[in-house]
């Protein structure tokens, strides 16, 4: 079966689809999170060096992955939006930004919680922590830029432009911070030389990453529905969609 992707690039057809898909993704996210947390708390062995405190990486590492990945996806949607002039792509980018910022913040908080027992301090100007912090600044900048403009068309395009420019800059920032870090701190504690991870640990981390992934998609779909509703409030079809929504709520 061939799916006509262009059909779903219209907010009107995508709105109900997003509404149908979002609960599934959120359900899968919940299930995977339960499984992942079970593995990370009960199956994964205690680390002989770090004790029980290492278990925070089951949240920290997937959150850090997601924070970077979401920025790339955002930049991707922005590029699609600018290239094809598709409104829905900009809306997706807008819907992803808060989730990405949330994961970046989560990665920072869990990182500092982990750092306290491991490094003896809440904050180390480690290359990865620092670039994560800068990523948070970029997310906030992106959201601030979008919300500062009343004209949605300009807000979309300017936000997309910034997402692209900063996404190109992210690797440059990462390597410059890394270089700066080695210059100033000498050999700091790094996880890259940690002994090979037990399979259960890796599995827990992967399941949690998949859970975060599903959560991100589900939440982005929910949020894009809000964005569509907000922007298309003048359109006639939105009233019909509301009636359908209310009807399905009554059924349940």
């Amino acid at each position: 079966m061939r799916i006509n992707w262009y059909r779903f690039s219209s907010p009107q057809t995508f709105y109900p689809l997003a509404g149908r898909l979002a609960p599934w993704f959120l359900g899968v996210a919940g299930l995977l999170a339960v499984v992942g947390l079970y593995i990370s708390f009960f199956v994964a062995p205690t680390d002989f060096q770090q004790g029980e405190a290492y278990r925070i990486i089951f949240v920290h590492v997937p959150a850090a992955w997601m924070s970077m990945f979401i920025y790339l996806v955002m930049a991707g949607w922005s590029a699609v939006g600018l290239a094809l002039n598709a409104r829905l792509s900009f809306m997706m980018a807008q819907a992803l930004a808060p989730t990405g910022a949330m994961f970046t913040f989560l990665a920072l908080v869990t990182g500092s919680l982990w750092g306290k027992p491991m490094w003896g301090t809440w904050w180390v100007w480690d290359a990865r922590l620092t670039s994560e912090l800068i990523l948070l600044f970029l997310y906030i900048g992106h959201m601030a830029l979008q919300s500062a403009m009343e004209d949605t068309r300009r807000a979309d395009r300017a936000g997309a432009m910034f997402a692209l420019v900063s996404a190109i800059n992210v690797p440059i920032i990462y390597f410059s911070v890394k270089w700066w870090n080695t210059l100033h701190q000498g050999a700091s504690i790094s996880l890259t030389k940690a002994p090979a991870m037990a399979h259960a640990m890796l599995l827990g981390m992967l399941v949690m990453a998949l859970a975060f992934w599903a959560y991100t998609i589900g939440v982005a779909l929910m949020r894009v529905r809000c964005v569509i509703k907000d922007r298309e409030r003048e359109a006639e079809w939105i009233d019909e969609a509301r009636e359908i929504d209310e009807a399905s709520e009554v059924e349940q």
Partner: protein
Amino acid sequence: MSTTGILRTLLWRDIQLVLRRQSDVVATLFFFIVAVSLFPLGVGAEPALLRSIGPGVLWVAALLSAMLSLGRLFAADFSDGTLEQLVLAPVPLTLVVAVKIFAHWVASGLPLVMLAPLLGLQFNLEVQDLGVLAFSLLLGTPLLSLIGAIGAALTLGVRGAGVLVAILVLPLYIPVLIFGAGAVTASAAGMSPQGALSLLAALLVLGVVFAPYAAAAALRIALE
């Protein structure tokens, strides 16, 4: 009029505008001096300490004053409609933007390059470190104008543009800060600043090639 003729006229016009409104340039320079002078008052005037924080302080102050002057880059031309004429002019907008960025650098970056060694003396930097400082700023300040132009174009005519441009542009300035201050720190520590300076020059090349495109695209978004 040929393309080069138009661009030359534009450059001369922008520089003349700066020369006739010197107070803007002087104010930015004074901000630089005041910001730098605050640090010894805040952290104490111990010579060894000052020497170790000096490169970073001077570079951060340069970053901030370059950012403050970004408002002048397109705003005046935008409000009186000149910018729309420039977009319609029979020359590529990328080149127009590049010329405007260059003029902006002459007015805001170049004075910093010349003034910074003098302020470096206040931080007990050696003569050779002062040379490295000036050279790193010479490579770095054009980059600040180039990256800043993207932010200035994106926030053109937006309410609260001043704060917004800071949030957008300062994170993107970080590599410039790291390599610029890194070169001077390396030199002050008796190491070769060449690595950092080469990376800074590489970033400058990247910026010269790509930033005018991005800024021109951002201007089109702002003007449509």
